[in-house]
């Protein structure tokens, strides 16, 4: 378990020193939010219905741009081969990358949530605990899918770009569930259906993390 932490620490230190991925992720998120904001010249009630979906689409697109590159640093100077030669279960590496990507997504949301609030005037903070729950579950699921697919993409090298197109359909259930749940928070409708969506988010997070843990060693082969 220590090793999960060592890899995570290495990744975070490298990212904070080089600032290669996160700033561009945040910028992309802000741009997407702005484009959505421009389109949202609507009545308050209509905004309430839209804001969840737009928020999560912005998180998805900006976040995937970051997650896609979470292994590209390993590709430089063939660090990837060095990582694969360590006598540790590669599933632990999946956990490090997964946690790192979840942190990246959370950082993105810290910027995007206030921004969407400012642009749409929809009060998202009426139910902070529920919003936090939905956001965390959504992040965990999204980053698990993203991490596994970007590992696959890295393992096939140049042909990997196409693979990132697969993430969208695979992650759609998570995005949909998170968007619907966020919409219900915005509309102040925390009924049984809301909790269904939360359950779905939880189920997908658990499934994707399990699948990722089990299949990661196969995903990073050459």
């Amino acid at each position, binding site marked *: 378990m*220590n*090793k999960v932490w*060592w*890899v995570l620490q*290495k990744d975070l*230190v*490298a*990212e904070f*020193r*080089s600032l290669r991925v996160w700033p561009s992720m945040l910028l992309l998120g802000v741009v997407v939010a702005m484009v959505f904001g421009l389109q949202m010249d609507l009545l308050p009630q209509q905004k309430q219905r839209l804001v969840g979906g737009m928020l999560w689409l912005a998180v998805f697109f900006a976040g995937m741009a970051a997650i896609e590159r979470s292994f590209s*640093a390993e590709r*430089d*100077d*063939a*660090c990837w*081969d*060095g990582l*694969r*030669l*360590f*006598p*540790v*279960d*590669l599933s632990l590496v999946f956990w490090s990358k997964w946690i790192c990507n979840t942190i990246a997504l959370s950082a993105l949301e810290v910027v995007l949530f206030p921004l969407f609030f400012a642009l749409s005037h929809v009060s998202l903070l009426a139910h902070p605990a529920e919003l936090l729950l939905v956001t965390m579950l959504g992040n965990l699921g999204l980053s698990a899918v993203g991490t596994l697919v970007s590992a696959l993409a890295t393992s096939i090298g140049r042909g990997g770009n196409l693979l990132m197109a697969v993430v969208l359909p695979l992650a759609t259930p998570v995005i949909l569930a998170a968007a619907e749940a966020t919409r219900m928070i915005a509309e102040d409708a925390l009924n049984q259906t809301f909790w269904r969506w939360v359950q779905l988010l939880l189920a997908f997070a658990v499934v994707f993390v399990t699948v990722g843990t089990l299949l990661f060693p196969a995903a990073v*082969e*050459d």
Partner: protein
Amino acid sequence: MTAPQPAIQTVLLSKSFGLRPVLHDLNLTIPAGQCVGLLGVNGAGKTTLLRCLASLTRPTSGSVHWFGEAAADKPQSRRLIGMVGHESRVYPQLSLRENLVFAARMYGVHQPESRADHLLQDVGLAARASAKPREISRGMQQRIALARALVHNPPILLLDEPFAGLDAHGSEWLVRMIDSLRNEGHAVCFTSHDLAVTQQLADVVYELRSSRLEKVRFYGPNLMMRAAA
């Protein structure tokens, strides 16, 4: 008493990419304490063979054994392998010392910090310990790559083109280094284009031609004869 298991043994090792066969039914044995040189033109499959030996690439058929144990069966057995590739395998954002400490921790080495300092001393980079990999010369990069590969003192050392891009001084140092490792009982396998260095360093030399290994014998400088291995 049974004979000691060879450090590396391949059984009918084959690898092909799509329709292109790269390695065909190779049987290679490297006992501990032996240094094997691999020659071959560009694209002959030297790197692929080395990657198969390190379990980085899964062979299409056949198998690789380290000390009698099937390679890559258990993650723990990867501890037996140290490898220097074309590239240095150090993270450009971390300093040389941080890179070695990270690798030592991942290998579960006791006291990673002092091991890193010790290695930096060994490869003569102690003065540049806090430099970033991009700030140092090619020769020094090769040294840090070697230190990175030796961090867990592996009994098997694989080197891919270790002499490429080194000046006379650098390659002399590397020859001495590899020589002393071999004498300590490490099994070494390296690829090279340089006949003179290969002849000087290796106990056994093979050439990879047409997906097969041929044993090479030297008769005087640059005069060699091949025989099917």
